[in-house]
């Protein structure tokens, strides 16, 4: 079914969604737009290109408590963390980011060890995708067969018209939610045509394409190449790329205690950090930044392919846009692929 609502009534849509579960949606804080849990529906913005950080934090927060504890005189009192999460709705996810959920599912819930933190949130979440209406030069999601108005993976898909927002049900879950949101109006046959036209226009937008054929094997074969030293020369070894990335998923587990109480927490970590691989002995198998940059590229374009049969990159362009020194992952991979 196709529904519509005036853009100026976005807050009414959000309010109605908040009656169905916790809503995560883009919020502008100064010039930075990011997904946040919504308390005030007026804070939601649908006027953005893409969020600075990916929406992965909805399923995989930067900090996740695993157990809370309090030290008492003769031991430790612990409090288990419930893994029954409230129903969630993410509103305004761009098609490349929707794809990232599928890429991450393969690691967190695809078989073998299932991560309950990811899995339980994921199965309780309705995804409302949102078509792009322009292209940033950094993006390259077309590489992965993702279109600017690609509804794959969304439960509901939104397209922004001039002053109207169209919402189309894609899955059964999406249809059910769509049918229960009062402020939405039914679309007319004319609206249907307009929606299809907007969808076609957005589908015509295309990004750069990175040639990835045989990347997994090629990257393994150029592991020792001095190429990486030059490619990593500008890298500052900060963790921006990994913290904005929709598919970077490395984490650390730390006990954080204050005044005798605290929590064992899962916290995002970054392979770009010097201490990521530092051993207690003082030995560090990845001492140089070239080794660390190579690790990030190889994990995405080689090791993940070997393990899960998919490249763990969706071409969202975030790492490129946020990199303080403008390292272009496309150029880095292309450079490695071009080595003899």
């Amino acid at each position, binding site marked *: 079914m196709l529904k519509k609502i005036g853009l100026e009534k976005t807050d009414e849509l959000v309010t109605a969604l908040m009656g169905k579960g916790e809503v995560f949606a883009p919020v502008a804080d100064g010039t930075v737009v990011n997904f946040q849990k919504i308390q005030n529906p007026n804070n939601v913005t649908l006027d953005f290109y893409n969020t600075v*950080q990916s929406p992965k934090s909805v399923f995989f927060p930067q900090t996740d408590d695993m157990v809370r504890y309090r030290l008492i005189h003769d031991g430790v009192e612990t409090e288990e963390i419930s893994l029954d999460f409230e129903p969630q709705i993410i509103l305004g996810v761009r098609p490349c980011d929707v794809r990232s959920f599928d890429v991450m599912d393969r690691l967190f819930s695809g078989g073998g060890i299932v991560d309950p933190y990811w899995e339980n949130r994921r199965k309780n979440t309705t995804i409302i995708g949102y078509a792009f209406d322009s292209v940033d030069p950094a993006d390259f999601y077309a590489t992965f067969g993702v279109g600017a108005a690609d509804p794959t993976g969304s439960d509901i898909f939104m397209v922004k018209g001039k002053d109207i927002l169209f919402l189309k049900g894609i899955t059964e879950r999406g249809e059910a939610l769509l049918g229960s949101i009062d402020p939405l109006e039914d679309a007319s046959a004319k609206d249907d045509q307009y929606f299809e036209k907007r969808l076609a226009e957005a589908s015509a937008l295309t990004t750069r394409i990175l040639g990835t054929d045989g990347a997994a094997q090629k990257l393994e074969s150029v592991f020792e190449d001095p190429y990486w030293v030059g490619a990593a020369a500008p890298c500052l070894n*900060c963790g921006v790329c990994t913290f904005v990335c929709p598919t970077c998923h490395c984490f650390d587990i730390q006990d954080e205690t204050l005044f005798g109480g605290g929590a064992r927490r899962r916290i995002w970590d970054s392979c770009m950090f010097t201490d990521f691989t530092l051993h207690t002995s003082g030995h560090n198998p990845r001492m140089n930044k070239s080794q660390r940059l190579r690790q990030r590229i190889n994990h995405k374009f080689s090791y993940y392919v070997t393990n899960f049969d998919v490249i763990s990159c969706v071409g969202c362009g975030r790492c490129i846009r946020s990199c303080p020194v403008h390292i272009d992952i496309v150029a880095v991979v292309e450079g490695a692929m071009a080595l003899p």
Partner: protein
Amino acid sequence: MKRIEARLKEEAKRLLENGEVEVVLAYGRGYDGRHPMPYAAKTVTDTERIVFNEYCTHNMARYLMDYPPGTRIAIAVKGCDSRAVVVLLQEEKIERGDLVILGIPAAGMKDPKTDQPIDASTTCDTPNPVLYDILLGGEVTASETSSYEVLSELEGMDGKDRWAFWSGELSRCIRCYACRKACPMCYCDPCFVDQAEPHWADKSPSLESNLMFHLTRFYHLAGRCVDCGECSRACPMEIPLYLFHKKVAKECEEMFDQAAGMSVDDKPVMVDFRVEDADEILL
């Protein structure tokens, strides 16, 4: 800027050809004209990739310590970058004899994210290099505006409002450490915040641990920050870190009559002691 780019290429080529230096730290092409990258040219052919335009904001002094002592390095510096080189010399992290400093008088630089001009109204009021061997263009006129003027709004706030401002800004930090890594003065290895013993700050971002990291970093940079603004441009969350650094710089300058990195002969204010020093700092 085209003229500076040509001169930069020419000098880089000459220095590498003569074997005067092993590497030239300058700027190279990025994925488009608005996103040039720090670039280390090591061969004459490499110098073809060198660019210079208004988006070449990076402070190349950040990379000097990537090379072992004794490496002969040519480095392209704008005003603030040259001040960073001076601080590193004062702190004996690099040797003057290893360097050929290519000075770039720079006016009209722009932030590639926002396209806003970078000048005394935000960061950097030193358009001309304070230390160089070769100057790649005519000196430009410095702005009349004091770079401290941007502080007036914060200074006008009472403590409560200022606390609200900074806790709001710093609570957004995601601890990616781009600020620290973009900073030419942040060279501690390991950084205090990465130490497990003692455990100075939690790894989770929270207002408390973010304050621990940023306040400590702000104070570590007292009398050392050269106001290049790279920390703030590097921040993905657009936290205006430069405002705090500038406030500390202003107080240092008022108390010790010395701005960071203006002369190799100065001693950094935090390691120098003079009988006539202001004593407000001692409470």
